[in-house]
């Protein structure tokens, strides 16, 4: 059997004495797109942060393997270099840090960590231009400080552009559809679909079925109260859309 890109085994995590993840199990083979759907507050973003290595959480049990390698002891930057990318639900604005400076630092840091040579400035510019064009990101946006003054849609497009540039083996997209109008949703989905290459895997977290019409998943998981409670094919998303999350128990958000 080929090594899964992501394997989560019985993952428990807490924040400030409160258990949020209560035994998550998930396997994503290479090239597959899995969706996680669940009501607000069920712990979806927590899962994405724990995968990316945010410090605030205490992992009390379980394992996370990325391409067969346990990543829970790694720093966030090491996880990124190992192939993980998280598209944030709420991308952070960083005044004073130029977008281009940031992109170059990120790309070269990852290359360095993997023992690859740094990109030359012309090669870097070309890569950014290419990634940006697909997502309607113009020079003007790239000249601004990182995410500062970007609209909600611009932020999401910028996240996907970063993903296109960094070429992760696993992309976790946390509510990338939220706050997008239908045009923006199409641009973003097109950008995401262009990165499906039969090898790269994705975990698409969403609240609404709508996104999954554009990014069609191989597997849909229902997330409730800190764990996956049901899995199925893409039709499960339609069922959820029709019936809501009520039948899965847990408190209403």
């Amino acid at each position, binding site marked *: 059997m080929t090594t899964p890109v992501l394997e989560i085994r019985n993952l428990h995590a807490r924040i400030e004495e409160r258990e949020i993840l209560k035994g998550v199990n998930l396997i994503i083979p290479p090239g597959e797109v899995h969706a996680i759907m669940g009501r607000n507050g069920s712990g979806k973003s927590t899962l994405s942060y724990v995968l990316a290595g*945010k410090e605030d959480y205490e992992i009390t049990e379980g394992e996370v393997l990325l391409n067969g390698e346990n990543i829970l002891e790694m720093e*966030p930057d090491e996880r990124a270099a190992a192939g993980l990318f998280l598209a944030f639900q709420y*991308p952070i604005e*960083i005044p*004073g840090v130029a977008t281009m400076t940031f992109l170059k630092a990120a790309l070269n840091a990852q290359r360095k960590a993997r023992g690859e040579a740094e990109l030359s400035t012309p090669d870097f510019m070309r890569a950014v231009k290419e990634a940006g064009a697909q997502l309607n990101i113009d020079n003007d946006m790239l000249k601004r400080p990182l995410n500062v003054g970007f609209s909600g849609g611009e932020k999401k497009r910028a996240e996907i552009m970063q993903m296109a540039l960094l070429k992760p083996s696993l992309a976790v997209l946390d509510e990338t559809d939220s706050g997008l109008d239908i045009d923006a949703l199409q641009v973003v989905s097109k950008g995401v679909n262009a990165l499906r290459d039969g090898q790269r895997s994705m975990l698409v977290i969403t609240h609404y079925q709508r996104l999954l019409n554009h990014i069609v998943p191989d597997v849909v998981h229902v997330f409730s109260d800190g764990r996956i409670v049901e899995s199925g094919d893409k039709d499960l998303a339609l069922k959820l859309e029709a019936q809501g999350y009520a039948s899965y128990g847990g408190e209403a958000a």
Partner: protein
Amino acid sequence: MRANFPVRLGPAEDALIAQLKAAGADSTAERITVAGLPTRRVESYHYTDLKTLLRAIPPVANAANEASAPALRIPGAFNLMIANGAIQNAATAPAGVIVGKADGGVLTTRDDVLVHINGALAKEALTLTLENSVDPVIQVERRIEGEAAHVADALKVFVADDASATIVETFSGSDAAHVGNHATYLSVGRNAVVTHITIDLSARAVSHFATNEYQLADGARLRTLVIHAGAGLARTHVFPRMAGAGAHADLTGLNLVADGQHADITMETLHAVPHTSSQPLFKSIVRGRAKAIVQGKLVVARDAQKTDAKFMHQGLMLSDEAEILSKPELEIYADDVVCGHGSTCGMIDEDSLFYLMSRGIPKSEAETMLVRGFIAELFDPIDDEELNEALQTIVDSWLMVGK
């Protein structure tokens, strides 16, 4: 309340009094004999208690002839030097720049001990008259070389109407426990545009004092930037006088302090006439057990209507033991003005750090990016690329030492 018994003088004060008397500055000597160096009880020295912080005053400097390389290399700059208080010969000045000498004592008298001492001890002043716009950066190196010395020096600059110029002063020298007391008087003519940057790069053992006084005529535009990145004890005074309608000043500064250091920027801006504006923006970055202070006083004269001024101090603490202190003061005698002040203080933002790291950027590099980002507002307006680059290297090497 004034004590009715004489203050006890320490060795620093004794030495200072002797030096002042030898220079014939009896009234300044007398003041210090009566009151001593200012303590925390003197309001403007509340956070910088000179009596406690200044333990010794070394002997008055002997003249030095220094030809060492500039402390900060700014490619293409026109360089001048004052070493141990003495003005050194300079290369041929760019067109429109007249370099000369005058007697010391360039500052307007005010009730401040450091100003008094400079006036009493600075023997000569370097004078610069800029008759028209000057392209190259003018760099004035002020050095204290050799054995520990007490140095008072002075610079007086006149910028003609409609001219523009960028003047950078750097303070450096040998590693000994010098006390430097530096004065700069800068007069900005009508509609002239001037950038004035003073950078302390002296050794840790040094006590660095500087007073920058400015006079702005109608429509003058001034940008100032004070950087404290060297001395163990540093205090820079920024004293602009907004004396012409339409004058505007961006008054900025940066304290970079680490373990054991104490840096103080004290600004007092006088809006003397109607329709002037100032934007004081100061930042302090503190690492280890160290102290950064910014005092900002806005004085608006009685008929200085339509004054627009807002003082801001932002602190970034890189350690828990760091102390960042702000003292804003408003003294407003006009009624139709917009004046304000604010200050913020915080640590590196964890969410920002996580975001950068999640993209593969290692922690220390991410921190450096965030610190640079914090300072960007101060450096971005410096258009001269070589100069901007040189300023970045100061911050980068400061950060490097801490890693």
